[in-house]
């Protein structure tokens, strides 16, 4: 076999040398009955139309629904909004649309 790199070049790692701390996903729920589901509208056009339909289905399944809206789809949700959803809801559905 041809030795392409006979000296074994050593390079400096260009990355951050680590990944963001991993976070486990919350366990999947078996049933939505009696649970509170957050519906997060990211403020894209017609996201509300999609969420309105989801809300109808969720209520039919016995879930409670809380609606939330991001100030802009172009930026991550503010930390306070994320905290409110996390402390109020058992599950969350984020709606992308266009």
């Amino acid at each position, binding site marked *: 076999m041809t030795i392409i790199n006979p000296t074994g*070049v050593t390079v*400096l790692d*260009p990355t951050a040398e680590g990944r963001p701390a991993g976070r486990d996903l919350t366990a999947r729920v078996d049933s939505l009955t009696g649970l509170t589901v957050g519906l997060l509208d990211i403020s894209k056009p017609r996201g509300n139309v999609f969420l309105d339909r989801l809300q109808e289905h969720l209520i039919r399944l016995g879930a409670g629904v809380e609606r939330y809206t991001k100030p802009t789809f172009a930026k991550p949700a503010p930390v306070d909004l994320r905290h409110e959803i996390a402390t109020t809801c058992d599950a969350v559905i984020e709606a992308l649309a266009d």
Partner: protein
Amino acid sequence: MRARYGATGAESHLKSRHVQIASLEDEAEAMFDRGWTDGLPVVAPTEARVRRMLEGTTRNPADLVTVVPPDLVECTVEKVAVNAVMAGCRPEYLPVVLAALEAVCTDEFNMHGVLATTMSVGPVLVVSGPIADEIGMNHGINVLGHGNRANSTIGRAVQLVIRNIGGGAPGGIDRATLGHMGKQGFCFAEDQAGSPWTSLAEQHGFGAGQNTVTAFAGDGPHLVMDQKSRSAESLTRSLADSLLGTISSRVVMGMDAMLVLSPEHMARYRDAGWDRARFTEELSSHLTVDADTIIAGAGGIDEGLPSDFAGMSLPKFRPGGLLVVHAGGPAGLFSAIIGGWVNGQTGSDPVTKEITQ
């Protein structure tokens, strides 16, 4: 080596993890395999090369430059130097790369959003001040194209840092539907000496002699042809006519743009004695849109404004939303439009930073 490449800065201690490429491996292939590249080959960032790169700045390798989106990772001068080596930069470009990163990693520029959007934008970097000539940047022929090392590698180094440090890679957080080749690195210099106008940096509050870099979230350049206008008035109307279609003729106020005015087009304004303020005022007067023509459904097109805007006259761009830069080769009656992205609080604002050594 020292005479040819400069000092290697052996006195400082580098903290980056050393990765040994096996003797049977091709280092270029090994770096592709590790996901460190933008799709083009990179220069292997050996310690000697990184040390030479660090000679381009007086800053300590351990200094924090910025916190890089989207993963919000702290980035040191050393890590920028590693990526600048990979991009093909010379040490004297490093201060520009550092300032450009400080610009794009601000809340105002919103690099996370610029990555995550399905629109095509990426950082467009405009260098102003004497450093552009000192490091051999191009502001002339093929200014928005390839062929100049500084132009080609400074923007690339910034994008490699966003990818390798910030974690913003295409297909991951970068969700562009189409993208454009300038996302490989889009950097050019303003032609200040050849312009009768104040510079882009001066528009953003800096002095004409200051070295700065302005970051703009921009699309690929779009040529504007006008070979017949011989008066400033005609050319201004012609440019406005093309600018009205930026992104979409149905988009007004919500997105910025950059106009790269070429020397032969600038000659019309020099001859007429128009300064930047006069040009901006006259151009703005031709960039007003009758809302009735762009309301959803008008002309059989569903895209458009809500009907609430009926009867209004609306400006194509918000105040200050059109950045004008003088650059390009000496011959050719063309200019270029670089479309932007969502502007202001909900998107990205242009950011200018001073370049320091």
